[in-house]
C-alpha cells in the first residue's frame, strides 16, 4: 500500500470489481484512470499509472468507500 504524499514515481493500480459498490468516486476524481461499467462497477482504464497521475490515483484509492482500489509501487 502506498500512502498519499509519499514518493513521486509511477504506480501500479488495482481495481476489484467484485468488491466495488459503484459509488463512482474514482471515475469522478480520476477519469483518466477509471470508468464504470454499465452496472456501475469500476473499470480500470490504466493499470500502469505514470508519475504525473500518481496523486489522482492515490486520491481515488483514499476516497473509494469499499476498498476496491489499490496502488502499489511497480515491481
Amino acid at each position, binding site marked *: 500500500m502506498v500512502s498519499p504524499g509519499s514518493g513521486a514515481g509511477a504506480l501500479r493500480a488495482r481495481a476489484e470489481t467484485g468488491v466495488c459498490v*459503484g459509488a463512482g468516486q474514482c471515475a469522478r476524481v480520476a477519469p483518466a484512470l477509471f470508468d464504470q461499467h454499465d452496472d*456501475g462497477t469500476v473499470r480500470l482504464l490504466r493499470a500502469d499509472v505514470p508519475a504525473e497521475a500518481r496523486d489522482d490515483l492515490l486520491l481515488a484509492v483514499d476516497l473509494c468507500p469499499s476498498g476496491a482500489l489499490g496502488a502499489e509501487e511497480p515491481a
Partner: protein
Amino acid sequence: MTSSPSAEPRSADGRPASFPIGRSCPFAPPDAYAAMREEAPLTKVAIPGGKEAWLVTRHADVRTALASPAASSDARHPAFPALGDGEQAVAADLRPFIRMDPPDHTRVRRMLVGEFTVKRVRAMRPAIEEICAEQVDHLLSRPAPADLVGDYANRVSTTVICRLLGVPTADLEFFRRVTTITGGRSSTAEQVGAALADLFALLDRLIDDKAADPQDDLISRLVTGPLARGEITRSSLLSQIGITLNAGHETSRNMIPLAALTLLRHPDQLDLLRADPGLWPAAVDELLRLLSVADVIPLRVATEDIELDGATIPAGDGFIALLAAADHDPRAFADPGELDITRSERHHVAFGYGVHQCVGQNLGRLELEVALRTLFDRVPTLRPAVPVEELPLRSASAIFGLEEVPVRW
C-alpha cells in the same frame, strides 16, 4: 426522530447523555460533538426506546467503523440504534437496502447503481438545468418574501427525483403534498402513516403502469428487468423505490436552502465563484462537508468487536457514526468550521462511507451545483428576509434542514 435540546455530553448524575442532540446553529454540528471527539474515541449515549449506543466522532474512526464487515445495518437486530418512534419496526418490516447487509444489500444495490454512474448523471445536466430555470421562474413569480424551501428547493428536488424514477407529472403535486406531511414538523404519526400508505399505493399503481407501458425511466427498468426475472419481490421493489425517492428528495430539499444561505453569509466565497465558475464542483463538496445534513443516518450494530484507534466497539452493541462530527474533525480538516471552497482536503464523509455510501451522490452533487448556480446567476440580489436565528430548524427529521427560508431580492 426527535431531537433533544441538551448540549451536555454527560448528565449530572453520570448516566449517559441523551441522543440525538439538536443543532444550536444550522450551519454547524451540535456543539457537544467537539468535546466528545476530543475526550474519547467513543461516547456512550442513551437513545429513544430505553437503549444505549456508542457515538463514533473522529474522522478516521468513522471511516474504519463504516468500512468494517462487522458493521451491520440490519434493523432487525435488537441493538439497532434507531432514533425515532417506530423507525426500527418500519425499517425491519420494509427492509430498504440502506438497512440491509451483504449479500442481500449487494444484490439490490447492483440493481440501482447503474442508474447513477458518473456518465449517466452527466447526461442529466441539461434536464436539471431546465428544471432549475423553471423553478427560479416560479420563485420570482411569488410575492416577496418567498420561501426558498417551498417555492424552490422542494420543487427542484421533487421534480428531479420524480423524472428520474418516472413518476408522471400529473402525480407530482400529490407527491409534494405527501412529502410535506412525511417530513413536516407538525405532522402526527397518524398523518405520516396515512401519507406513506398513499405514497405506496401510488408506487404500486406505477409498477403496473410501467409493466404495461415501459418508458425510459428507473421504475420501468426495474419492473421489466429484475422484477420480471423474479430477482426481487414486488414488496421489496416497492421498499427500494420508496427509499430512493425519499432519500433523493429530502437531502436535496434540505441542502439547497442551507447551502444558499451559507454562501450568502460568505460573500468572499461567492465572489470567488462568480469570478471562476469552474470552482463550483469544489464548492459543492465543501458545502456538503460543512453542513453534513445526513449526520445521523449511519446506524449500525457491531456483529464482532470493531477496533478503532484506541478503543473497541464491543460485539453486539449499537453504534452511530456521526458524519458531521467526522467532517469537523480538526485531525482531518484544517479549520473545519470555516467554509473554504479552495481547501485541499477532499475526503469528507457527507455521503457516508463503506458499502452503503450514497448511491445517488453524483446526482446529488450535480443537482446542488445547478440549483445554486441557477439561483445566484438569476437572482443576484437574493437575501434572507429574516435573521438567521429566527429560521425554524427541521429538527424532527433524520436529515437536518430548515422548515422554511423566507427570502427577498
